[in-house]
């Protein structure tokens, strides 16, 4: 089975070369039969990669320690679920997952791209093929997951305990669906550059792909953040760690792409910019892969450091980023520029959005790469953390967030800021009210907290205003309004939901940072502690035995107003004997949207235990907002226009988008 997987991988590599060369020449020679080769080859390549992945997963599930990767990252006593998720909890397996998703997306284009122009489809598959080929070669040459050990060891070395978690089961696949999803946008862009022409069907194809990739990337980042929050036991949700930045940069650029693609689709303007942004977004995904996989960074993601891998990925990076940008420089002038628009218009607002987002991406990029560059050039070691990003990323995001509610209310071509402001009066009033209430009635609220809460409410209310205005609230009878509301295009709901979710995330961040409290103390069994109105009693430490670990579980009771326990929280220190590793299992109690977070420290000689407690108000909104953003993207994807793409229907719906009264 393992050799079958290996063989399938080699075959998939060979097919990816075929997928690159044959359709590319077919498109050049305008030969239908050569171009038609791309589709079946892409689908077969995906099937082979899936077979290869299944072979590795089954080796993991069956604890086949004769496979080096399984031996290094698994153990027979691990629960089955972590044996399986361990497949991608290591360098080799996660790269295999990467190409699996890449070929999956290629196969989707092959399967559903029948309405694309034949040459465009052939070129897209060719570009997708060459990305695949590079990464297949990388895996086979430097990170082969199927290497055997002889003699086979009897027992494995266990998966890194902090990766033995459900969060890890979900986070990498989601993140990769996002990272790699942008490869399709990249392939479409490069294909358009190769053809030297870009048309309406191009934008209609690229936008849903961007939405899909962005949706998964949002989920992946939110999941990773939540995982770090509860698994590392530090109570933080974002550390500005280079590895986090590596996933955040494509997200920011992807968000910009999402918005510029709208302009391109609706108004066929910003073509060249959208193309460049698509290339940059995937380049940042590749850069993220390089940063995480090459071992230049120290983090939980750097499973092992092997210089040849780093050099190899760096070559891939140079090839694709350099190649695509060179092609862009050569060919971009051939593409025709699109429609004109007034600076104050929906297009103008989206351009502004793009300026802010790409500049913010650039600051994150500098903050992430500068320490690496400095070390390479001078040997000096610096760390760039939250203080840097607070000062650079923060000021760039603030004005953008203030402007978000205006965007959807401006008309295409020429908008009216005054009219949009009038419509946003209610939203502005609620934001102001929230600001005043926070500032005046909550003890210890800083100016920052009041402004932050106000801004969050502004975003949330702005998103609701958008829906209300587009349903005609205030100007038509309620019955008509409800009918209009139900008839709004899904993409309008998508926009509103995504902006709503952004507001929720911001609300969670501001509330947690401003009103969160924490306490560090030593406790003995029976003692109680109070934090922000919650009383916790430490019941005691209880030893327990897990499948592949032993633990000391600290039990805490949440005491209600009446003095009797109303809930229990337990936090544990786990010891994994195979790796001689201790981990902290944090105890979290969700109360409404807020959380009480308990983390256990070392045990003293006298039986007391160091306990760290946090009260995190509205903290769940940080990730809940991410889920709402995902729902927004999903809603946009269900838009009839994207599913069917009939021009007549689009024109009819566009008239609903621009309600009466707007010029």
């Amino acid at each position, binding site marked *: 089975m393992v050799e079958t997987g290996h063989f399938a991988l080699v075959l998939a590599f060979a097919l990816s070369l075929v997928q690159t060369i044959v359709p590319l020449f077919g498109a050049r020679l305008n030969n239908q039969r050569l171009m038609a080769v791309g589709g079946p080859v892409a689908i077969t390549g995906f099937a082979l990669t899936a077979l290869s992945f299944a072979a590795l997963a089954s080796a993991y599930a069956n604890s086949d320690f004769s496979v080096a990767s399984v031996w290094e990252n698994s153990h027979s006593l691990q629960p089955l679920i972590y044996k399986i998720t361990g497949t991608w909890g290591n360098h080799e397996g996660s790269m295999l997952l990467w190409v699996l998703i890449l070929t999956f997306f290629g196969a989707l284009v092959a399967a559903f791209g029948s309405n694309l122009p034949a040459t465009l489809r052939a070129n897209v598959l060719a570009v997708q093929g060459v990305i695949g080929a590079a990464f297949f070669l990388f895996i086979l040459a430097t990170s082969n997951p199927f290497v055997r050990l002889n003699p086979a060891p009897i027992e494995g070395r266990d998966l*890194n305990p*902090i990766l033995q978690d459900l969060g890890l089961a979900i986070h990498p696949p989601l993140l990769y669906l996002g990272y790699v999803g942008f490869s399709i946008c990249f392939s479409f862009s490069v294909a358009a550059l190769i053809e030297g022409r870009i048309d309406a069907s191009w934008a209609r194809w690229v936008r849903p792909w961007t939405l899909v990739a962005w949706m998964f990337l949002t989920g992946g980042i939110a999941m990773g953040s939540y995982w770090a929050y509860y698994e590392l*036991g530090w109570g933080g949700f974002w550390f500005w760690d280079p590895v986090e930045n590596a996933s955040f940069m494509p997200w920011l650029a992807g968000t910009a792409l999402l918005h510029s693609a709208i302009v391109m689709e609706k108004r066929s303007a910003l073509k060249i910019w959208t193309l460049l942004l698509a290339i940059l977004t995937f380049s940042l995904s590749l850069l993220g892969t390089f940063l995480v996989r090459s071992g230049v*960074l*120290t*983090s*939980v993601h750097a499973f092992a*450091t092997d210089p040849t891998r780093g050099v190899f990925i760096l070559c891939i990076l140079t090839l694709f980023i350099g190649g695509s940008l060179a092609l862009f420089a050569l060919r971009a002038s051939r593409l025709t*520029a699109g429609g*004109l*628009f*007034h*600076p104050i218009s929906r297009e103008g607002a989206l*351009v*502004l959005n793009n*300026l*802010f987002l790409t*500049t*913010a991406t*650039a*600051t994150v990029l*500098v*903050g992430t790469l*500068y*320490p690496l560059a400095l070390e390479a050039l001078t040997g*000096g*070691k*610096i*760390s*760039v*953390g939250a*203080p*840097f990003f*607070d*000062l*650079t990323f923060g*000021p*760039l995001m603030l004005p953008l967030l203030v402007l978000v509610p205006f965007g959807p209310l401006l008309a295409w071509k020429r908008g009216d800021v005054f009219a949009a402001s009038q419509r946003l009066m209610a939203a502005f009033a609620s934001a102001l009210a929230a600001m005043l209430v926070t500032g005046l009635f909550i003890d210890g609220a800083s100016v920052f907290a009041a402004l932050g809460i106000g801004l969050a409410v502004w975003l949330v209310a702005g998103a609701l205003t958008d829906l209300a205005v587009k349903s005609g609230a205030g100007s038509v009878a309620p019955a008509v309004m409800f009918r209009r509301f139900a008839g709004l295009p899904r993409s309008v709901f998508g926009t509103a939901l995504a902006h709503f979710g952004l507001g929720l995330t911001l609300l969670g961040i501001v509330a947690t940072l401003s009103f969160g409290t924490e306490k*560090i*103390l*030593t406790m003995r069994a029976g003692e109680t502690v109070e934090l922000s109105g919650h009383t916790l009693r430490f019941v005691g430490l209880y030893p327990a035995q897990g499948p592949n670990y032993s633990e000391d579980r600290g039990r805490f009771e949440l005491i209600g107003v009446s003095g009797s326990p109303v809930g229990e929280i337990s936090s544990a*220190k786990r010891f994994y004997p195979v*790796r*001689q*590793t*201790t*981990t*902290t299992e944090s105890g979290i109690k969700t109360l409404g949207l807020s959380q009480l977070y308990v*983390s*256990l*420290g*070392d045990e*003293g000689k006298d039986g007391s235990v*160091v306990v*760290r407690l946090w009260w995190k108000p509205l903290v769940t909104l940080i990730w809940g907002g991410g889920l709402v953003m995902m729902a927004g993207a999903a809603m946009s994807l269900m838009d009839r226009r994207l599913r069917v793409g009939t021009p007549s229907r689009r024109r009819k719906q566009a008239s609903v988008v621009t309600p009466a009264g707007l010029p």
Partner: protein
Amino acid sequence: MTRKQKRLSVIAGGLAFLGAATGLTFYALGQKASYFYMPADLTTTSVQPGQRIRLGGLVEKGTIQRGQGATVAFSVTDTHKSVKVTYTGILPDLFREQQGVITEGTFGPDGVFVADSVLAKHDERYMPKEVADGLKAKGVWQESKSE
């Protein structure tokens, strides 16, 4: 607005953004980046009390002292020099004697390093990279010892 004017205004706007962002970035890099030192480096470079740095090395054997509440004192060493560090909070799970750590904080006026964060590696097999490189440069630690 003509196409040319539009293009110019977009370019001007873009440059203004880029300028603002570049300025902010340089300012922030100068102010907010914290340098990494090993104890022996501190004899050659002067670090002001209150200046934020990252101090890395090995936790010296026999120096971990649990104080009042959750305060811990220990020494960080690169075997040439050692620096006394205090920290209040929960130490990372992989914090133990003779293991690599990175502490971040400032020097107090008494010369004791007051750390507000202590990092050990996530995985027991590897040293923090900065510490490993630093120790290698000082000839104290060889690659082979890590595995």
